[in-house]
């Protein structure tokens, strides 16, 4: 099996696993963890798009001819994945803070209980 295909498979498996967790999770912390798994999967996927077998890192340490370019890895996906990781971090930090507030307001970190109680109030 081609290594690229394997990496794609890994990325999509992580995304789908995380998605299952988000869909079924009731505990908010677990949902955020599942989101983290999805983000890890998509980061793997992004970085795979720049994958070449036996490539060297795109850092210029010795001279090379531009016409016969050495087998550098594609730098753009690595730049994108950096952005995506930082965004993922931001989302996780913010959602944990939101969960703290949620817990203060509702006294629980489970999702469904609150929706039910809300209906009773109305």
């Amino acid at each position, binding site marked *: 099996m081609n290594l690229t295909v394997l990496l794609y498979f890994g990325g999509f498996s992580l*995304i789908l696993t*995380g*998605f299952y967790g*988000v869909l079924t999770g009731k505990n*908010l912390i677990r*949902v955020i963890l599942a*989101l983290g798994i*999805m*983000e890890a*999967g*998509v980061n793997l*996927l*992004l970085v*795979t*798009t720049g994958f070449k077998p036996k490539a060297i890192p795109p850092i210029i340490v010795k001279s090379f001819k531009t016409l016969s370019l050495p087998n550098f890895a594609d730098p*753009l*996906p690595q730049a*994108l994945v950096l*952005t*995506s990781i930082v*965004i993922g971090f*931001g*989302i996780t930090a*913010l*959602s944990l803070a*939101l*969960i703290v*507030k*949620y817990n*203060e*307001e*509702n006294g629980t970190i489970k*999702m469904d209980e*609150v929706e039910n109680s*809300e209906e009773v109030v*109305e």
Partner: protein
Amino acid sequence: MNQVILLIAIPLLVAFSMPLTGKLFPRVSKVIALLTLLFEAIWAGFILFNTKGAVSVVIGGWLPPFGINLVVDHLSGVVAFVVSIVVLFSIFFQLSSGLSKKPNFYMLSLLLVASLMGIIFTGDLFNLFVFFEIAGISAYSLIASGKNSNSSNGALGYLIPASVASVFYLVGIALIYSTLGTLNIAQIASSFSSVKPILATFIAFSLLTLVLLEFEIVPFNSWVPRAYQGAPSSISAIFSSGLALASGYVMLRLGVIVFNGGQGGFIRTGSFELGHALFGIGVITVIAGEIAALAQKDVKKMLAFSSVGQMGMVLVAFSIGTHSSIYGGIFALISHSFAKLLLFLTAGLIIMKTGKSKYTQWTGIARCSPLFGVLMLIGSLGVIGIPLFSGFWGKFAIIGSTVVLGKIGFIATTLILAASVVEGFYFFRLVHTMFETGEEKVPKVKANFAFWLISSLLVAVIVALGLRPGIIDGRLKKIPGELIGNAESGYVQAVNKQLKGSKK
């Protein structure tokens, strides 16, 4: 046109400086934030006034597709102008009502407006994602700043689906980069038809999930009622009139330019009729939104579901993709923005002063303070699309484009008309309740000068657009022509011209 970057850079600069100014001059910093928003509106107006056609502006001096570019054309100019006005009015209302004293609130609203401008102008698919995330993060925090006990519930209920959708958006980006090797929207647009059809469909769906989620379309809109109810009213107004407008704009851009390659007619990717799918989703959204609004007692939730219904109608118009339907869709979006802004701000003020959020408790409010009843009435008429008010012309153009479509056109026309009747019913129910004589005594609602200024301006806009749509028609009528071209749309041409210039 280089100066369009200031629309993004200046609010960022002011937001970054607010922790500093907030410490040194705590009172002035909020005023500075408001002045920045005023600058945004003026500058966006200036940009729009000077727009002659699609122009691409580079950032960092690197030509697309290597660097990131901004694209200014009539569509982005109009949308940016309306969004900047919406945010200015909402935040002015918030500041004058003295609700939020924290400087962070104004800081985040500046970030929100900067990111909305970025969403509107950027010509790069990944940059669009970054701006969607900034908009999202500021939005979650602003919702959570609401005083009622549902605010964190609303924020999380928005954060989780939006984050899942943005993961799928990134999947779309990864697949586009591995197949087409570029992230520039114009370049993708000219080569998207060479992608294998099923893959193209998957990419289209993964990109559109995020856009449709922000556009409040079924089945991605579960966040809407909770978030609108939890957020402060001015923020709900920004969601309904600003964020939804901007994402509708992105929907139009991606749908017509990228997936359809700038051709007119139903959007299709390869062999898949994406346009028909979007048409169906839109119709379902109209039905679901209006029925849910009818069943709601909470005024803010009712307004939220009414937005959902309107967005469904706009999606139907966009998916048809003819000149008149695109024109109608944009007109409807803009008119909805102004009318909903008026409704949300008025309702927000009433809820704030009386502490009653359900319309059944609003009995007799308009007896004591009739002007509020009149404002709600005018806003409602603007949304419903009664002749002489702004919503009419958008609906008129959309219906004009659906009736010629044959059988499905007949269904769509009937639904839009039925939806208007339903809308009319629940809005008049609301206004009627306000004018009824109640048993309880209701306190007189008073508003300050700022509110009267904002609301009278909005009423003037709604009535003026209804009486003489010609004032903005000149620019709006050019939009479909710029989007739909014979070989390439004007948008793609502008960027490609720049690309060719670079190869010399």
